[in-house]
């Protein structure tokens, strides 16, 4: 137990948490945007998987930032595909989302086999690149707290910093710009923005595209920093966990970040625990993020339900 506490309160664990949180954070923010516009995006998982593979394959031939952009583009295109089928052809958004997920699980293996010349498991034979980590050397020079600060803040993926910035940008967009107001209005009560002449479908379509692009960054981080290279089904439910994190974060960007951080902590725990407790079977440790997601979801839904009941009671 002492060892676990020692590990949890170490700087290395903090760095691990940030690393595991970053893909979840982007996926959660992506899910948040489409959810707020009234389209529940269950395809986060598939989008992330396809973006991860895109990032790996593009990074073989191009610099890392091009690969990240390509991953965003792949996610955005999938978002546009969903928008087309959902808004133009009136397909149910959840079914469209699962179609994307199915396309992703098989399609990535198929594309991987085509790209590697027959390897269906991993991209180990591809020379893919990674996203650079950012070191902040001058922190060390600060007297006293300098070395600690340096250990905490150095070595993160550049995308992790982008993630923190994105939380702010999404918040600013949603709550301080007219388009953010449109988006929230479209999700809240579509008839009103429609009467005001706001193009409801267009807003929803763009929010799906933005959602896909954000998840795409998460996929790039996963395949270019957390792991170098692609393995089949490497997202391992992160997209679905992010879907839970959207609900858990009370549909607010800061809440989304905290929820992603919570799940990131437990994923990091499931990474460090096998070294500390080798008597616990690894499969059971791997269930931790999923169990925590269910518990958190139930707890939060219960509290939200209570809050709603209290509200109606006080009104009556």
């Amino acid at each position, binding site marked *: 137990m002492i060892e676990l506490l020692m590990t949890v309160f170490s700087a290395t664990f903090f760095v691990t948490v940030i690393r595991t949180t970053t893909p979840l954070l982007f996926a959660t923010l992506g899910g948040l945007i489409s959810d707020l516009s*009234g389209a*529940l995006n*269950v395809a986060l998982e598939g989008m992330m998987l396809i973006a991860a593979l895109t990032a790996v394959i593009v990074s073989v031939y191009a610099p890392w930032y091009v690969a990240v952009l390509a991953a965003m583009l792949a996610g955005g295109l999938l978002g546009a595909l969903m928008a087309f*089928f959902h*808004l*133009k*052809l*009136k*397909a*149910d958004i*959840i*079914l*469209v989302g*699962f*179609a*994307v997920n*199915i*396309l992703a*699980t*098989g*399609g990535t*293996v*198929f594309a991987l*086999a*085509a790209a590697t010349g*027959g390897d*269906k498991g991993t991209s180990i034979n591809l020379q893919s690149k990674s996203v650079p980590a950012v070191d902040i050397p001058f922190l060390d020079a600060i007297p006293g707290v300098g070395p600690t600060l340096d250990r905490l803040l150095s070595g993160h993926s550049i995308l992790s910093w982008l993630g923190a910035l994105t939380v702010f940008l999404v918040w600013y967009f949603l709550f301080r710009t007219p388009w953010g107001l449109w988006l929230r209005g*479209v999700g809240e*009560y*579509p*008839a009103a923005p*429609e009467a005001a002449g706001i*193009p*409801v*479908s*267009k807003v*929803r*379509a763009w929010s799906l595209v933005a959602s896909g692009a954000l998840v795409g960054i998460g996929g790039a981080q996963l395949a270019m920093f957390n792991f170098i290279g692609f393995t089949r089904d490497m997202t*391992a*439910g992160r997209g*679905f*966990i992010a*879907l*839970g994190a959207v*609900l858990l974060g009370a549909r607010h960007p800061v809440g989304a970040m905290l929820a992603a951080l919570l799940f990131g902590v437990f994923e990091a725990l499931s990474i460090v625990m096998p070294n500390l407790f080798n008597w616990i*079977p690894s*499969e*059971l440790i*791997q*269930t931790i993020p*999923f*169990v925590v*997601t*269910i518990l958190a*979801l*139930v707890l939060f*839904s*219960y509290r*939200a*339900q209570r809050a709603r009941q209290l509200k109606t009671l006080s009104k009556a």
Partner: protein
Amino acid sequence: MSAQSAVRWRAIRKEAGTTLVALAMALAVALVVVLLTSHDPYKAFSTLMGGPISSNRTIGLWIDDVAKLTLTGLAFSLVFQARQFSMGVQGQVYVGGLCAALVAMSPIGGTVFAIPVAMLAAMAAGAFYGLLPGYAKARFGASEIVSSLMLNYIAILVVNFMVRAYLAPAGTGQLMTEKFPDTAIFPAIIPGTRFDLGIVIALAATAIVWFVLYRTAWGLKLRLVGHNPGFAEYSGIPASTIMVSAMTAAGAIGGLLGAVFVQGRAFGNLSVDFDGNLAFEGILIAIVARSRPLAVPFVALFYGYLRQGAQLMGIRTDVPSEMISVVQAVIILLVASSFSMPGKKVIAKLLGQRAAPVTAGSAAK
């Protein structure tokens, strides 16, 4: 009466027509993909289209898939009829398979009761696993999509752990149990093939689900809750009880599928990751069958053929069998878009979505 049945036939013809168009388009997409990636596209495509009927053995494989696809399609149809999006069939298959395997490996496995007891145990486990997300939704308002997906991952990990640590023969490092005793494995209907009891179970389940949905009060209530929750509420139908019971019943079917998996002649044992993602393909079956139980076996027959063809193509040619997922996605997108599942969350939201395309059209110009 005859006028009514004429209307019904016309509706069936129309829906079958759209489905066939979707299938043709999906196959065209498959053809393009094969042409782009294969060195011998003719062989690949002809294996995809003709492989399953090339021998008795492959026909057996096909029918085995049809039985399993029918069961997963029924499980999804049942929850879709109640307009729930519980995606937990995969998890139910794993817990059901685990329980069936435990019974088959216990002393009961050597007796004549092995098959019925194992099936009942699997159904009970699956029902419990289906109940969990339903209860969490009815009691706490927790989204059944997320919770059922999480339960899938948990079930797979736990079953894999059980197999690796306890059930596999000690010291071999195998990731599967030993073969069950013969009494616990489904008898073959045609000897030497996989044409076994599974298909009988699947057809019986189809009849039962149809009867329950369309000929019992519970089924009527379930469909009412699914089609018009507001109306159901006003007529005094306990919507959340119906919803939870629908998810539980679907869970029992999922668990039964687990028993069919492990006790069928294809396996006859429990191994890690045994479902090969088949459980999720029930979504496609249910969507194409419009969640109608009687249509499910027919859709499973067609889709099972394609699926088996893709497997054989993966083995015999240079096109990976995963290519089939492209076909799946295209079919789902096309079939789902020709009709829209109404009333999934709140009617108010739906009204907004209905009204939305008007602006979409003008925005496009």
